[in-house]
């Protein structure tokens, strides 16, 4: 049984212009101890999918209209926010994108990590502080015992993301959702944070759902990859399979848009971009949502929505192109 199994999740937002179908029928499953990457452009619904799991989206205007989120065999969708509080941080930890704004500026980092421990575990104030210092040491913050009493503004971006990781892992959750944890960081720091995440994952044996738009991050960390486009999953495959044999035109476009440094000068070509932009998800037209930007679009693509189906073991995609073969 998968640790987390999202089936047919639809999260919609009511806006003045109409209903925004941010996540529109997403299936994602994560096994214990596995690293799953969810990739896609900004606005494709990756973050909303992740936030829906713990109902961290603003409700209203957001609403989970359909689907189920099975965590260890228990559906999280019908749970109230109060009931979810026992799962938040304890079972599922969250690392956010912006380390600069995701920490409360008026509380010390120690307090912010310890409050999670005190909420979920029967520890005294002193024990919580000790565990907090221990966590800070694990995420390699120098002089952890002294730094624990510092405020977020006294840390650099990379250090703050380490604090966020310590916070997310403090209660030893079974699943950690990292929403673009390296996007806001310098390239050199990015690699350090990804390594740290990998380390922590091996140490605690947790599953990681890593949301990113950087294909480089995917190649480096993932075991399995889910590609999302406009609120839907368009392709899902083990990482080698996805990079070696991408089947969906969108995935192919994403991979071609990665800069190549392994080619010598004469073979270098202009970086290929995918033309157009992500569609607005209010009353989207029928058919495949990628069709307007797709080089291979056929007449059926604007009429009928392609279904996600298995084309090889562990490799699923949603495109009419595969139908013929």
């Amino acid at each position, binding site marked *: 049984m998968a640790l987390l199994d999202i089936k047919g999740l639809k999260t919609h937002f009511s806006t003045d212009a109409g209903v925004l179908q941010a996540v529109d029928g997403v299936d994602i499953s994560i096994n214990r101890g596995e690293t799953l990457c969810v990739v896609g452009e900004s606005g494709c619904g990756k973050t909303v999918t992740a*936030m829906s799991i*713990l109902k*961290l989206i*603003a409700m209203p205007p957001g609403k989970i209209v359909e689907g189920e989120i099975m965590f260890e065999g228990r559906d999280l969708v019908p749970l109230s*926010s*109060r009931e*979810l*509080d*026992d*799962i*938040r*941080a*304890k079972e599922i*930890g*969250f690392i*956010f994108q*912006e380390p600069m*704004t*995701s*920490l*409360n*500026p*008026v*509380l010390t980092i120690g307090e*912010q990590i310890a*409050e*999670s421990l005190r*909420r*979920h575990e029967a520890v005294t104030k002193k024990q919580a502080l000790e565990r907090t210092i221990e966590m800070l040491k694990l995420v390699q913050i120098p002089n952890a015992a002294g730094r624990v009493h510092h*405020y977020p*503004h006294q840390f650099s971006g990379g250090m703050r993301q380490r604090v*966020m990781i310590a*916070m997310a892992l403090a209660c030893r959750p079974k699943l950690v959702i990292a929403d673009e944890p390296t996007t806001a960081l310098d390239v050199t720091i990015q690699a350090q944070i990804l390594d740290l995440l990998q380390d922590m994952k091996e140490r605690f044996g947790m599953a990681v759902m890593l949301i990113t738009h950087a294909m480089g991050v995917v190649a480096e960390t993932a075991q399995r990859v889910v590609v999302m486009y406009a609120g839907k999953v368009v392709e899902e495959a083990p990482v080698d399979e996805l990079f070696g044999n991408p089947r969906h035109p969108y995935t192919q476009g994403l991979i071609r848009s990665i800069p190549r440094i392994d080619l010598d000068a004469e073979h270098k070509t202009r970086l290929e971009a995918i033309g157009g932009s992500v569609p607005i998800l209010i009353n989207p037209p029928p058919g495949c949502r990628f069709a307007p930007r797709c080089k291979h679009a056929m007449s059926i693509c604007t009429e009928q929505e392609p279904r996600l189906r298995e084309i090889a073991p562990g490799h699923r995609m949603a495109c009419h192109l595969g139908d013929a073969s």
Partner: protein
Amino acid sequence: MSQYILRRLMIAIPSLLGISVVLFVVLALAPGDPFSELATNPNVPPEVQAALRAKFGLDDPIYLRYLHWITAMAHGDWGFSFVSRVDVDTLILQRLPTTLYVVGSSQLLALLIAIPVGVYAATRPYSLFDQLANTFAFIGFSLPTFFTGILFILVFSVKLDWLPFVYTSVPGSGIPWLLEMIRQAIMPVMVLGLFQAASMTRFVRSAMLDVIRLDYVTTARAKGLGQAKVIVKHVMRNAMIPVVTLIALQMPAVFGGAIVTEQIFRIPGIGSLLISSILANDTPVVMAVTFVFACLVVLFNLIADVLYGWLDPRISFR
């Protein structure tokens, strides 16, 4: 920190001097003469008048008069009232406690209303409660205190005869006296407090709404802390930073607004002292009271800055 306060107080000296110059010049240029009554009194011979004017230095050039005043002030001599022949500092000290009592209680009332209402409204934006709170707040600060004051007097004193509408400040002690002091303060405190609460509620609400959608609040919710703890510990703590600063900065204006309320309810406070001395051309009192108000402005600015730094660890006192 104490060094910072000391330095800020040092900086305050030149600005207070500047304020005193402006006040002094404006009052000197204003029409009206404290001795105008003497001039029209046929029983006072002109030479006596001239002697008096010379004695009090009223015919000296303005800068000399200012120098006299400022050196006397520096020695703790605030001058004396031409009208009541009482030292100005005694007069102010007599009146100040009443004003502080009324203004202080009304601020407390305003905070007790504004913070819970504003916070609760912000956690349920656009709900019925929020809409009602907004409507009342809007009505509250649209109605000037001189209007609501008279309305209150009409309803609670004239029609219902529940509360006295003239404030008396006879010194006394004992429970009955204390109860009377509270009873007569109810209306002015309500009028001032509700007016303040109206604008404060809106401010608390918007400060809360600004914070509630920030990333670190989502982080706190992701820790499973529960709504109440997230709101109080993470949202309120941050939202109160601008609110506290604003309240501290508003305090001088509150004292100014109290002048009107003091007139309506006949409260013998510092505001009514100012009005009566202006009407009587009692320059030393006017000068001293306006200067006290100026000091309050400077003081509350300093308090606002200190509070800001105390509440927000990102601000350092340098």
